């Protein structure tokens, strides 16, 4: 087990290093000149050439990418992520202030969408072909096709403008200092963005859980349980639901990436001061240090989710803990190899077809 956990931690660390380089390289490849962007046009024109050269050396404009990356990484390791131009504060401080807001939003959306999706998926599968199944499926397909930011706009239009139930934006009432605002205020401002993000996240997990539940309901062990007089819902409750938990967890942890992307859009629509809104402001305003910092933080969140998922598999599924599922022959990787990402009904069909072909020719 220790070896299994260590393997994944090292893998994540290496990937994270590569991701940080990717982010840094992309941000620095921009045609926007950091010296001009950080000084402003007027100051740059009035400056002597020597001073410009000094500053260029300070910002590392002429240094090769590897060198400036090494400098940045070295600073980041010691807690110096550079200075944000737009917010005129250290990057780490800006990120820390906004992470609380974003994490609250994401955590609510993650838990609500996960639980709701899981329950809806099982409910749809138990009533397969019935009206409940059709409603849930239709809802999921419709939501999967809906742009997150549009849904946020419509909610804002309906529940803040036409029916003023919720505030029109921001995380606190306008004109109130953050120290005077109550928890209730904060929750009131958080509610509509969180509802939007939760509803959008339901579709994927519900559809996959439905597929998986249908698989389980058609399995031999559920058939046996039904022969013993159990109803399908009872069989699921008496242990079969564990088989649904693993793919659902895979998906739910993988969805952190999606939820972060969604939170960028939702925060932008609701003017909610979180990481996503800061990233958009930073990128529009040429704030290189902040943009790179937020990109790396978002990657840390995603990798943290993957790592947690991989370790949780070991806890839930003893086969993986013993290393049986770690390097499977089909080479589909440790996550998809246990039938997580792709609905396994399709794979089953494939194998069935292959056997049929061989028998037919023989």
């Amino acid at each position, binding site marked *: 087990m220790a070896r299994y956990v260590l393997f994944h931690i090292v893998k994540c660390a290496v990937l994270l290093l590569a991701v940080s380089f990717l982010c840094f390289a992309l941000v620095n490849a921009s045609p926007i000149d950091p010296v001009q962007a950080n000084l402003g046009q007027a100051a740059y024109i009035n400056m002597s050439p020597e001073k410009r050269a000094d500053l260029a050396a300070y910002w590392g404009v002429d240094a090769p990418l590897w060198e400036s990356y090494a400098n940045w990484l070295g600073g980041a390791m010691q807690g110096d992520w550079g200075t944000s131009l737009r917010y005129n504060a250290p990057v780490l401080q800006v990120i820390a202030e906004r992470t609380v807001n974003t994490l609250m939003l994401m955590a609510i959306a993650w838990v609500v969408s996960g639980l709701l999706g899981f329950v809806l998926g099982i409910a749809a599968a138990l009533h397969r072909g019935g009206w409940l199944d059709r409603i849930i499926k239709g809802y999921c*397909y419709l939501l999967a096709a809906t*742009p997150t930011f549009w849904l946020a*706009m419509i909610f804002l239009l309906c529940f803040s403008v036409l029916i003023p139930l919720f505030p*029109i934006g921001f995380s606190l009432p306008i004109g109130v200092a953050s120290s005077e605002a109550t928890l209730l205020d904060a929750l009131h401002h958080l509610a509509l963005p969180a509802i939007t993000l939760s509803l959008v996240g339901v579709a994927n997990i519900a559809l996959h859980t439905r597929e998986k539940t249908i698989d389980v309901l058609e399995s031999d062990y559920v058939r046996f349980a039904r022969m013993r007089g159990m109803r399908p819902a009872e069989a699921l409750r008496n242990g079969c639901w564990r088989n649904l938990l693993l793919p659902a967890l895979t998906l739910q942890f993988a969805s952190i990436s999606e939820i972060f992307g969604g939170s960028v859009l939702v925060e932008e629509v609701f003017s909610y001061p979180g990481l996503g809104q800061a990233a*958009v402001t930073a990128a529009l305003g040429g704030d290189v240090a902040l943009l790179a910092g*937020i990109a790396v933080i*978002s990657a840390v969140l995603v990798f943290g989710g993957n790592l947690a998922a991989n370790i949780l598999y070991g806890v839930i599924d003893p086969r993986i803990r013993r290393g049986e599922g770690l390097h499977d022959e089909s080479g589909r990787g440790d996550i998809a190899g246990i039938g997580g990402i792709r609905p396994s009904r399709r794979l089953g069909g494939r194998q069935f077809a*292959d056997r049929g072909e061989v028998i037919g020719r023989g």
Partner: protein
Amino acid sequence: MAELAPAQEPVVQTTLFHAPRSLARIISNRNVLLITAVCALAILVAIIVAGIVATPAAQETDFARRDLAPSLAHPFGCDWLGRDMFLRTLAGLSLSIRIGLLAAVVSALIALVLGTIAALGSKVADGIVTWLIDLMMGVPHLVLLILISYALGKGFWGVTVGIALTHWASLTRVVRAEVLQCRQSPYIAVAGKLGASRLRIAAKHIVPFVFPQFLVGFILLFPHAILHEAAITFLGFGLPPELPALGNILSESMTYRSTGMWWLAVFPGLSLIATVLLFDLAGGALRKIVDARTNQE
């Protein structure tokens, strides 16, 4: 007795295999699915063409029809410059689909090459491709799009290159898994033992096995590409504001959200959803046709 036996045989077969009845069903079902897919794709082509034709008219301003609510003459209403929202939406959808097409083709080619290399190449090559996929999936998709768009100085190329370069990861996984599964199946081994060359096996067995799934994956890339294009343009990193793109239309409507001009946001958004659903419909129908299990239902 001997005369009775042949007459009974088909009866036994029908009860065992349901042959005659389900055969008729397969044909009609397959046709229904095929017609669905073709119709959906035809509507999408029509949107592309109509959008290109409508683009000049969509940019026409006329202050006589400023802020008009939806009516028969202007089904989606008009905006604050008197531009017809229906034409603007049509032009925006067309633009989105064209960018989606370009991006999906590039992404699909990358996925095909990388997936094949991973499945047929050495263990090292496989490791590298898998690692690249993990790397791509490590950064939230939207953040990566913002970064690429920023690196390219925003604008048309920023969004197009960004979307083209970031959508290959999931399709690469599919291609890799399909090729691997095909390569390990018994009939490939049999063909090899019978003396078929590697090239012949690839052309006669692996390509026909993988291609349908690849095609379906390709069509299902569109909804993602279109939604991401709209999102990134909405945030201000994508297409320049003077173009009638859906992201721009919706972003502009944000400014007027508190004035009660609901039609500026509602109708373009609904059309976008309808377009995405059309692609889903076409892809889903094709998937059912090419999938070995569901095409028998």
